[in-house]
């Protein structure tokens, strides 16, 4: 527990966060989340709410998973939509947490960072614990922190693309620029090695959905991601070696015969 991740008022032992959409069935979703011991699940409300919060039975299922629920504003394209959805989420899930998405482009689902900052400011002032889905842009990140966000969630690649970390340079400089802010890679991961790479880089957690939900075996893939997150985190904590240009043998070779004979051939 010494390596717990602190996000607002919560301490989490797992650094894997999973989405709850696109699974073959809610039963498979629940199994994937339980077996991977994901610390947080995110759930969307915009489209599911309907007129009278008609998404209740699915939401109860998510609540029943006994993990932290991070409602999101997926599908919101304007500040007003996002703020309204966040307020409903607070009622439905009885949490101040909100994963704030304000989508700017229908094709890439990239965040509208201007709308994002505006919505973040409104929500932070209203007492929400905002998890903003943003880009690796440092000035946007600074603005979000000034608005009151205590966590940043830069994208790895466009939502659902499975391309991994598109801009490792940008993500590295973000990590270096905000050493004390919890940073979570949100979106774009495709395979566990992508998650491991993010964690090796010093990111605090990863959040993903499609890569698990659309895998042939979502339960196995969720476990694969959980292992990768753990592996990457351990690597980061262990202070990995620097890569070098020349070979560096782990045992001295000077004075040793280095021919066929020495291998007993």
């Amino acid at each position: 527990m010494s390596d717990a991740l602190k996000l607002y008022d919560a301490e989490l032992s797992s650094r894997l966060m999973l989405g709850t959409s696109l699974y073959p069935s809610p039963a498979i979703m629940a199994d994937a989340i339980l077996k991977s011991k994901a610390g947080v699940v995110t759930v969307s409300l915009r489209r599911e709410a309907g007129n009278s919060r008609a998404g209740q039975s699915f939401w109860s299922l998510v609540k029943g998973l006994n993990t932290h629920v991070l409602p999101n504003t997926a599908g919101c394209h304007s500040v007003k939509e996002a703020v309204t959805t966040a307020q409903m989420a607070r009622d439905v899930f009885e949490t101040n947490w909100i994963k704030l998405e304000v989508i700017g482009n229908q094709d890439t689902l990239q965040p509208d960072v201007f709308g994002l900052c505006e919505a973040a400011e409104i929500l932070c002032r209203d007492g929400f614990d905002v998890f903003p889905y943003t880009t690796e842009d440092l000035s946007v990140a600074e603005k979000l922190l000034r608005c009151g966000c205590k966590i940043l969630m830069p994208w790895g690649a466009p939502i659902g693309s499975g391309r991994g970390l598109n801009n490792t340079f940008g993500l590295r400089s973000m990590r270096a620029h905000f050493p004390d802010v919890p940073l979570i890679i949100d979106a774009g991961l495709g395979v566990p090695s992508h998650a491991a790479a993010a964690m090796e880089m010093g990111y605090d957690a990863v959040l993903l959905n499609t890569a698990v939900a659309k895998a042939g075996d979502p339960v196995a893939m969720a476990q694969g991601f959980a292992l990768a997150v753990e592996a990457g985190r351990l690597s980061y904590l262990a202070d990995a070696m620097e890569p070098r240009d020349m070979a560096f043998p782990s045992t001295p070779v000077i004075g040793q015969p280095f021919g066929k004979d020495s291998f007993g051939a």
Partner: protein
Amino acid sequence: MRIRIIGGGVAGLTCALLFAKMGFEIDIFERLTQAGKGCSWYAGGMLAPWCEVESAEPLIAKWGQESLTFWKAEFSGTQSFGSIVVAPSRDTAELKRFARRTENFEWLEADKIAELEPDLEGRFMAALYFQEEAHLDPRTTLENLTQRLTLEYDTKFHYNAEISEAEFSDPAWDWTIDCRGFSAQASFKNLRGVKGEMLVLKSSEIHLKRPIRFLHPRFPVYIIPRNDNMFMVGATMIENSERTRITARSIMELLNAAYAVHPAFGEAEIIEMGCDLRPSFPDNLPRIKRIENKFAKGHVLHVNGLYRHGFLLAPALAKRVVDVVLTNAYFKEIMDEA
């Protein structure tokens, strides 16, 4: 033996037919003014057991194949032309994934697609062809079943008849089979509704012989040819229990998909927009729940959770219902409460 069936959708009517064929006396109670007007009315009617396995359990393929045989034998309107799966060129990865997850298809190249569906010439570079699949028009199918039950088997239909669950164990009937779909939510711990929206378009410019499944990263859209130049486009899958209220966004997405399959759909007439709930359990598999009365009569069987597989599963499920009633058979995949 007297059997009462509550709910005249595809589940209720197929159960009725199997029991009627065995010579039992059947009463069907339907809350609406006509059989099959519930969520079966909005079904696509694709008999696509191989395609569905992309996201469904293997049981769906097995029972779906059984049902496919049933429909071909029992309903002459069943169209056995297979089905075609396509993806827009930028989503070719979706088509490859679909191919990996399914079986019993062949890859088609552009010229072969045009041979099967001339109106799709030049629109797609690759497709998957599931030759053994079929489709039917749910509405005419249910009308046909209703007629057959009435004329051939003297089944009695009672309309505008809502029966409360407290009255289910009425010993006037040996068995009451509850096929109410989502209306039976209170009888199960975990039955939820999954909203589906669909539309019907009419165009004389496009002719399709078989269902076209258009892959989309978020939900599969299919276009199913019906009689009289009609096409059913469906269906959204939204995790909420709203029985009505079709949203603009959903219709926009369905139309967008239709337009992407063929731009002439842009000039098609919108004939109908529909919406209902798929009754679903957490694993999206159906359930049979048997509640035996302490007396010799008045037993109850709840049948539910056909999810998006009403026509694909109903005949196979009805066969199990008959086995449960007559021989106390037990099917472990679907008989433990979800």
